[in-house]
């Protein structure tokens, strides 16, 4: 097997020998580092004070997706592969997206509304006013809680 003239026609390693140069990999590496720094920026107070949480979350996910695409395209060589790459990646991505979308109703339902049952098991700060009232009302349930409906 150490014979270097061995040449499997289905071994694609020869096909893209010319594609990935060391310089390119170093460039991708630098880009990944810069992007990581970008998402790490969100940690610092000046960012957190000036950028809404939602925006920085979308930003972080965008940065992550960019990084993921760089890794997939260049390090995993998908940029230079023949069209078989779609056969394997598209169904998998489709199934993953389906899994995520299947969870969306849960996310949508749960983010806007917390059921009575869940509020009972949530930690809450005791309210200053009318907690005595609420406590009296809730006494029969064995524990006392306010239910913060937003």
């Amino acid at each position, binding site marked *: 097997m150490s*014979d270097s003239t061995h040449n499997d026609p289905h071994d*694609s390693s020869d096909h893209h020998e010319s594609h990935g140069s*060391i310089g390119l990999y170093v460039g991708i590496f630098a880009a*990944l580092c810069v992007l990581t720094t970008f998402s790490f920026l969100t940690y610092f107070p000046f960012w*957190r004070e000036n950028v809404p949480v939602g925006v920085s979350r979308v930003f972080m996910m965008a940065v992550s997706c960019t990084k993921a695409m760089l890794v997939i395209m260049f390090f995993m060589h998908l940029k230079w592969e023949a069209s078989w790459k779609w056969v394997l990646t598209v169904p998998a991505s489709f199934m993953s997206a389906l899994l995520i979308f299947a969870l969306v109703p*849960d996310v949508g339902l749960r983010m806007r509304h917390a059921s009575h049952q*869940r509020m009972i098991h*949530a930690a809450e700060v005791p309210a200053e006013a009318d907690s*005595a009232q609420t*406590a009296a009302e809730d006494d029969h349930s064995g524990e006392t809680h306010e239910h913060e409906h937003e």
Partner: protein
Amino acid sequence: MSDQGHAPDFDYQPALPISNGKTFMWLFLSTEIMFFAALIGTYIVLRFGAISWPSTHDVHLAEIYGAVNTFVLICSSVTIVLALEAAKKNNSPLAKGWMVLTLVLGTVFLGIKMVEYDAKFSHGLYPQHPHSGIYEKPDVYYAQAVRLRLSELKVELLAITDRTAEQDKQLTVIDDISRELVAPAEEQLRNHPDSPLGRKLLWKLADEIYPRASVHENPGGGHTSARHPNPGYLLGSQDSAGRRDRSPFLLTGGEGDAGAEAHDSSGHVSGLNDQHHPWLKLPIMIPGGNMWASTYFLLTGFHALHVVIGLIAFVILLMMTLGRANAGVIENVGLYWHFVDLVWIFLFPLLYLF
């Protein structure tokens, strides 16, 4: 493939124009994509559907470790690509060098992960009882758990006939906590169940034992859950510095004097569990903490498992000649390793920065 004896003009077409090993690696990776997509999706549902979720500093997560680990994994992705390039040029020693570097970087990742896990474990943050000391809210059950832990410690100490000065000090600390924090809260709850004061005392008890960073640092900062902004019970009703000065038992702690209100390097506030570190281990109150621990350890655990498998593959590769003949194997292991890197690229912001 070529059967020249009786060759009709059939050209054998493999299913995919790549080697079988690579085909199966990609098939495996597509199942892995779905596996991690499900895990991450579930995390997102649980996290954003949760009524409350601890901030990263509440649970001793230090962002810098995550960022460094991201960097380490990116470096290792580059080194394995360079190993593949060297192997394609039939330069086995160079390929081995890059492979060793990849192995080292993967080990560094796991080492940092271990340091991080240790920070959680030493603070009683486990995904499951009995190791886990996490309580979701400061209620009578929490106070009871604290009382039971204190009496357990006390019985242990009293059983020792020749106590050292250190152990006597520990007894004093236990008695002080029982007298100053637990007993008033429980008595108040028992005698005046309708008054909010009892539950205020419970919050105070929980806060003394495990002051959550989101409550104490940067009020209104982006790290606290939007649903539960900083409770005003500490800032309004009591001045926290004065409160700590009034507590005599805080002064008995070994390193507790200066650190009572001091933030340590990663922004954590020092509580009773920290001041009496190895032995006290009182139950702690973190709203949403159990769900956090489950998801965090599940996600990072599965990722770390993949890293371990990758390291084993590297060791096996290092026993081979990394010439052109084995470039296909290196490529497949590399694909797997890049995928591990890919997962971490998403886990880092989701777990550390969200």
